[in-house]
């Protein structure tokens, strides 16, 4: 029997105990970039909050503690809290992360939190996601196949299925797109996430829309804007090799289809 993992040990049961500074808690100072034009005008500002937190808590839990017990006006998106829904993308110590996949022990004693870049900030960590989803919608993100449907499933070998596996993992959190310096400076660029989702269909053996998507992505708003900085790959919380996917699409445009 291996020894019990540390995380099954020092457990703080309730937020009450946490706030009372129960044993095992660490001190965390959150430096948060705030923006609230309704109450504070057009200038953003920095706020600092110091809390006691369990080292194994998520950064999201720490942000909740701030919101629930220090400042109710703090606004952030979140839902599933374990890295699947893609709501809580934010810039943590300068890197795009999901707040629910960063542990307090990895950032204590001090962490800086800002909204993701390149999308209009609406309030605190809320950004306007519409430009991001417009990019996604522009690449025809659905299976295209006019051959008529068989009675049972279409056949696809495990190898064919594996070809596009990596890009099926995308949760549309925007970590990649809003880490891209090209996207920051050019709101016409569809951005890495849209290309990832195009990739997911282009290399699906059941799909017949590759030519259309490659044409869209060969335009000046498409893949050739990419400067291969690898920020997107580094930022992806799902471990998708985003830059590689973009390179594959570029190669298909250059050598296969046109």
């Amino acid at each position, binding site marked *: 029997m291996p020894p019990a993992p540390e995380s099954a040990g020092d457990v703080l049961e309730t937020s009450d105990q946490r706030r009372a500074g129960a044993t095992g808690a660490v001190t965390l100072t959150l430096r948060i970039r705030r923006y609230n034009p309704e109450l504070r005008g057009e200038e953003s500002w920095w706020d600092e909050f110091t809390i006691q937190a369990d080292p194994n808590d998520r950064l999201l839990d720490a942000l909740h503690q701030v919101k629930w017990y220090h400042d109710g006006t703090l606004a952030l998106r979140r839902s599933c809290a374990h890295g699947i829904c*893609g709501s809580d993308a934010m810039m943590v110590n300068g890197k795009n992360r999901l707040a629910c996949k960063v542990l307090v022990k990895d950032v204590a004693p001090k962490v800086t939190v800002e909204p993701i870049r390149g999308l209009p900030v609406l309030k605190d960590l809320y950004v306007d996601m519409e430009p991001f989803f417009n990019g996604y919608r522009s690449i025809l993100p659905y299976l295209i196949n006019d051959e008529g449907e068989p009675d049972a499933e279409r056949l696809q070998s495990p190898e064919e299925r594996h070809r596009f596996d990596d890009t099926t993992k995308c949760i549309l959190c925007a970590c990649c797109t809003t880490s891209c310096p090209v996207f920051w400076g050019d709101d016409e660029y569809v951005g890495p996430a849209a290309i990832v989702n195009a990739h997911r269909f282009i290399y699906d053996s059941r799909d017949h829309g590759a030519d259309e998507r490659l044409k869209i992505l060969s335009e000046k708003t498409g893949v050739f804007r990419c400067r291969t900085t690898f920020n997107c790959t580094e930022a992806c919380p799902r471990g998708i090799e985003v830059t590689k996917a973009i390179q594959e699409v570029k190669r298909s445009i250059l050598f296969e289809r046109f």
Partner: protein
Amino acid sequence: MTVTHTYDAVIVGAGGAGLRAAIEASDRVRTAVISKLYPTRSHTGTAQGGVCAALGNVEEDSPEWHAFDTVKGGDYLVDQPAAQLMCEEAIDAIYELEHWGLPFNRTPDGRIDQRRFGGHTRNHGEAPVKRACYAADRTGHMILQTLYQQCVKRNVRFFNEFYVLDLLLSDGRVAGVVAYELATGELHVFRAKSVLFATGGFGRMFKVSSNAHTLTGDGPAVVWRRGIPLEDMEFFQFHPTGVYRMGILLSEAVRGEGGILLNGEGERFMERYAPTVKDLAPRDLVSRAIYQEIKEGRGAGPRKDAVWLDVRHLPREVIEEKLPDVTEFARVYLSVEPTTELVPIQPTAHYAMGGIPTDVDGRVVVGPDETPVPGLYAAGECACVSVHGANRLGTNSLLDIVVFGRRGGRHMAEFAQGADLPALPERPEGFTREMLEGLMSRREGANAADIRSDLQEHMFDLAFVVRTETGLKKMQEILAGLRERYERVAVQDPGRRYNTELMEAVELGFLLDCADALVAAALARDESRGAHYREDHPLRDDEHWLKHSLAYREEDGSIRLEHKDVKLGPYVPMERKY
């Protein structure tokens, strides 16, 4: 100011059930989907292990075996005709998802691969059967993405980050809903001929839960406040394998692929509780077995309040390729390496079997005689058809949302095609406006997060895997106290823009309503069945309790309970052994 919109069909919620209904309805009538989240944030995306259908791609199977397992798994509280229909339509529903591009894992000959899951058996319980179609441990993610893609293709109209806070009825007919726009704080009245609720569950009332922060029972509470009953609320599923302390789901697929459970002494204890299917027994049985092991001092970990999930013996490629996400959860949240270390787990609040009562077309039906409310529909976890009875089998929730999302969407559209637009009640947004103004009227008072955390703590102690009369009565007193504190809740944020503090306070009110209904129904049912285990009444009592419960909120705030018959069929209730 209130903005008014007019549609034929309005769907509330954009998870699997809502999106599937939207595809169906938007092909036929003018449809809007209102969702408090961006659709791809919905909790369907976190479902992991699979979706069952008797395709027979890997070994012999039949929809009839699937239906039997569903009925037995639900401890015979399942409406059998609904379960039969679901298991028969399952096959088409899976092919349809595949035709829309869902990237299922494949067999060597290119067909949809299938694997084992808890409670799914060959020939009425002989042995586990490979019935779950899957895409690694991301099946829910793929379903949500695929359905959203189809909605993008069809240009479905979404109102994202709009919270539906009231149902409008006019002479007993649905007239629309009232929604709060998070971005602006404006109220919107959506007039409609038919409305379908697909808002998901309410697992956030428990301290340890696999549910998203946003799963607060909005749909059930909204209709309950308008006199619609909630069915079988006492039946809440506690999934055996949640990440210790955090409750994050570790899929049953881990055991489907060969993982086993060990107690603190290293014993594979499920062999004692379910000699035939062992670790693949249904979830209610496994959760109770874990509770029993811990109670008898054989728990694991420093506090002996966990057990171990062991996958160290599985081939590395199975772990990495078929269970990549759950493996990552153990690494990220527990700092455990599952290929070489044991993973500490504990039961986690997972799924509401109960909810808004519907028939197989998604129509909301009231009372023992099942009188439909014209134009009102529900589907998915917030609904109770009932295909899950007292305990849902793993994978059947994903099946439920696609089968009954489709049926509900089609029926609500056909209803709208034959109906005129009802008149609005006077001051349609009045109720909602007063509720919000009440919450916004105090800058100081009770803290909503404190009330929520007390609710979760006490529900976890008193209404979880094991319940007693004494405990449930105590919980009722606690709920009354929480309700009093809730009346004094303060909202610090005075703004109208992205006031999530205000919406969290509203959601807490929904949670309290759902908890009231759950506890009242659990107290009344003095038997044990499926996920509802009463230590003071440990046996199933078919003579008195082979029936659904219906909880109504009365005008004075009290709860009235009614019952309706279970729709039986070919499967005669018998003792449940595995």
